[in-house]
């Protein structure tokens, strides 16, 4: 066997192949003027509630499409379609994250030429979705108050890839030992550029700041 095989130096990150596909997808989205937002969080942080409220507020101004990524079930896509916007359910088949290729497939299901804002609701998980670039223009994550202000320290990569962090469920702040200043500090340690917006998707508190950020980013992308 010796001598039959030669050694080839590859020296390439395993993520390089996905990163390349993500870059290509972003270029196409720029041409088509489609803003893709990758929304990440742990399960139960209020992603679907926050998204539902956002859609209700913005659907008259923007053409919105949603891709729901879940290991199984159609629950979230049904909730979103009920609002009168396009929604597709992506089944990851047990996979814990979405990559650029799966995202591209989802976008084709949305007939992406026709939407201005495409939202990818990623799998509820703070680890793997952070490692795979989906091709999104911006990454957002939701951290809810009951999860604790130390999450940025426990999941540093997630916080370092996010452009905006929404701190949800501010209505329950009196019942938890959640220190908002400490949380901002912990986020800044991992990502000084991240914008932090405290919100309550249930009551609507703080949501205007989030809508303003989102509308501004969509506008900038289409310029």
């Amino acid at each position, binding site marked *: 066997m010796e001598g039959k*095989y030669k050694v080839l*130096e*590859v020296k*390439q990150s395993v*993520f390089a192949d996905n990163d390349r596909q993500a870059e290509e997808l972003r270029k196409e989205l720029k041409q088509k003027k489609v803003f893709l937002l990758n929304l990440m969080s742990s399960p139960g942080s209020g992603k679907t509630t926050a998204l539902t409220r956002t859609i209700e507020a913005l659907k008259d101004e923007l053409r919105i499409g949603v891709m729901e990524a879940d290991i199984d079930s159609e629950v979230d896509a049904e909730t979103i379609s009920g609002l009168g916007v396009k929604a597709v359910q992506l089944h990851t088949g047990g996979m814990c994250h979405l990559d650029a290729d799966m995202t591209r497939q989802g976008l084709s299901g949305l007939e992406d030429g026709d939407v201005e804002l495409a939202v990818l609701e990623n799998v509820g998980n703070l680890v793997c979705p952070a490692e795979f670039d989906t091709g999104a223009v911006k990454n957002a994550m939701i951290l809810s108050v009951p999860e604790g202000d130390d999450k940025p320290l426990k999941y540093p990569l997630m916080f370092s890839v996010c452009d905006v962090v929404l701190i949800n469920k501010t209505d329950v702040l009196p019942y938890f030992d959640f220190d908002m200043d400490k949380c901002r500090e912990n986020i800044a*340690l991992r990502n000084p550029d991240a914008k932090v917006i405290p919100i309550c998707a249930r009551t609507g508190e703080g949501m205007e700041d989030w809508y303003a950020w989102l509308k501004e980013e969509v506008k900038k992308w289409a310029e």
Partner: protein
Amino acid sequence: MHELGIVFHIIRSVETVAQENQLSEVAAVTLEIGEVSTVIPSYLTDCWKWACGRTELLKGCILRVETVPAVTYCEACGRTYGTVEYGKTCPCCGSGQTYLIQGNEVNIKEIEAC
């Protein structure tokens, strides 16, 4: 299943390299995996065996894993220390102003092929 997704990406990358270099058989792939990359080598090896068996190019291909130690740098005192042992707080000066300089790699180092 995180490792399975990673295995699919490795296979795709190796297939590209093989095509570019007109290779028809890959006998071994060597990876560099950082200590804090969140990838568990034993899971990766199990997924690898299953996934490789489904391709012509990589049938029976061996996966070798080299571990890259995790090292953190402290901005406050300028020293470095082992991340796995001490975490985010510098053991020399107690500062939390630290960042990882190596240890989250998931790289394909080299392949043996013909």
